[in-house]
């Protein structure tokens, strides 16, 4: 009775959360239960509940197909690149923007560097084609070569990481930049009075004070290690089968399972189950570690 009274009293507020709650249930919570299809022999006509159980068959096929190792390797290596190398470049860039702050050129450069962030990967894939087309593309013209970029997997680790760096660092550096700008300038003044060089100020003031935001960014990155920048890996190599050995990640593999006529929904759902559950564990574990090391940076 008391509960009903509280509900009634908060009726208007409950009505306001209702659309959001409905959204979360329909598009987030029900698909969580949809993960069960990894253990089923899914059939569109029978639906999720009606499809027959398949035990661990989907997982068995995935492992036996021989792709699993390659996909996992690509996913993790590219993720580590964006977790470590890209972050270092972003921090480096933020420190440089800070060293020039106040000038008009600097403001212009910052604005321009964010530009790629606002382009869709489909658009960027066309830029890629302008550079990489084997007959007319800029790269072959400059290098004087005749390389078939879209059928030579060995070049793609460099191409993909370059495109990623190009697209994200401008936007990614903002968060470090604004943190650097927030550092109390008295710290730097005191250091200068004590005779600290510019590099010593960066090393002993700027970087230690960025530590907490770096930790937050890294934890979030570790939680997403199995999720790649899907648009990049799907569009820029034009989903070319010849390149899969160096371009296929978990996301593109799963996507191909849904969209390609010959794709296997069963193996995709098994890969998706792995991605969701292991991704969840990684978030929990990394958060627990942070809770031990520096509790104030823990996410929950």
């Amino acid at each position, binding site marked *: 009775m008391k509960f009903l009274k*509280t509900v009634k009293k*908060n009726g208007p*507020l*409950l009505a*306001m*959360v209702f*659309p*959001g709650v409905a*959204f*979360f249930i329909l*598009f*987030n919570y*029900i698909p*969580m239960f*949809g*993960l069960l299809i990894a253990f089923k022999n899914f059939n569109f006509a029978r*639906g*999720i509940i009606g499809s027959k159980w398949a035990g661990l068959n989907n997982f068995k096929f995935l492992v036996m197909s021989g792709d699993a190792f390659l996909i996992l390797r690509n996913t993790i290596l590219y993720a580590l690149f964006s977790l470590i190398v890209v972050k270092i470049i972003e921090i480096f*860039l933020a420190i*440089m*923007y800070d*060293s*020039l*702050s106040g000038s008009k*050129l600097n403001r212009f450069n910052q*604005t*321009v*560097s*964010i*530009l790629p962030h*606002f382009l*869709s*990967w*489909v*658009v960027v894939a*066309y*830029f890629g*084609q*302008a550079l990489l087309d084997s007959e007319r593309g*800029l790269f072959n*013209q400059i290098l004087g070569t005749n390389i078939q970029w*879209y059928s030579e997997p060995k070049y793609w680790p460099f191409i993909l990481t370059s495109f990623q760096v*190009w697209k994200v660092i*401008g936007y990614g550096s903002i*968060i470090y930049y*604004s943190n650097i*700008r927030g550092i109390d300038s008295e710290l730097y*003044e005191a250091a200068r009075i004590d005779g600290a060089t510019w590099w010593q100020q960066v090393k002993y003031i700027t970087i230690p004070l960025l530590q907490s935001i770096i930790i*937050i960014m890294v934890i979030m990155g570790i939680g997403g290690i199995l999720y790649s920048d*899907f648009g990049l890996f799907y569009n820029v190599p034009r989903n070319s089968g010849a390149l899969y050995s160096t371009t296929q990640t978990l996301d593109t593999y*799963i*996507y191909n*399972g*849904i969209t390609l006529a010959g794709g296997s929904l069963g193996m995709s*759902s098994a890969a*998706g189950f792995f991605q969701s559950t292991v991704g*969840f564990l990684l978030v929990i574990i990394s958060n627990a570690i942070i809770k031990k090391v520096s509790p104030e940076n*823990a*996410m*929950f």
Partner: protein
Amino acid sequence: MQVSTTVNTKRKKKKDLTADIPILVKIFSIIFTTGLSALCIIPMWLTLSISFTDEFSLAADGYGFIPKVFSTKSYEYIFENGSMVWRAYGVTVLITVVGTILTLAVVSMFAYAISRQSFPWGYQLSFFAYFTTLFSGGMVSSYIVNTTMYNLRDNPLILILAGAVGAMNILIVRTYMRTSIPDSVIESAKIDGASEFRCFYQIVLPMAVPVLATIGLMRAVSLWNDWNTSYLYMPTNNAWAPIQLVLKKIEKNIEYLATNANNMTPEELERMQREMPSDGFRMGLTMMVAMPLVIAYPFFQKYFVKGITVGAVKG
């Protein structure tokens, strides 16, 4: 659950400090950051140049930064014969506007309710939202649920529903409302007889404009750029194809031609090559898709900057 307010964008008279930085460091920084800007512009410049180059010149000389033979034929073609392109453009604009309004409406109402001190389930609902960022059903599962249970295949509604309500957005708006709108303002309005809804849209919404602008603009950009949802869910509904899907499909046909040229009959091959849009057309279309955002974003830059700096939310 609280937002880390480590970000302080206010400048604390640091200007005199940059004078102290060694000149070599400054020169290096200028070269590096200006070089990066050049790299950001180059691919777009190249694409723009291709779209203004004569097709025969492209075939003979390849792509270049300055059109060897200038031509506006690609754009003329798009303007004259591109009824499909214009329709797709309209669809994208419509989806962006309606989708952004939908997101703002749902997110702001949810955030308002859980920001109220008197609301007894604020904590539980925050967690209910936050949990979706930790664990998800993934792509296959969402696809199957959306198509088999909700019948959203080839239904344009999916374009505004997918990703409409993000937990992080809700938590950002909630924290903003809590910290910058005093509870006493709402309480006194209620004493004066204002209903909960009235408090929301007459007091809280106007005060929350800065944070809602940030979230709305980020959602608008992601709607404009979304090729994935339409590609996945709208395989045959051409009437409702957004512009990104049109661009994506052209690219896919080229890839198909490149990989299957050997297996096709000469007639088939000839037909496909004839129907294939020219390089100038494709690059022109690419520019038309990219340009609205490139032109608009410098004006809204401060909101986007705010967006990423408040994005580091703790649950």
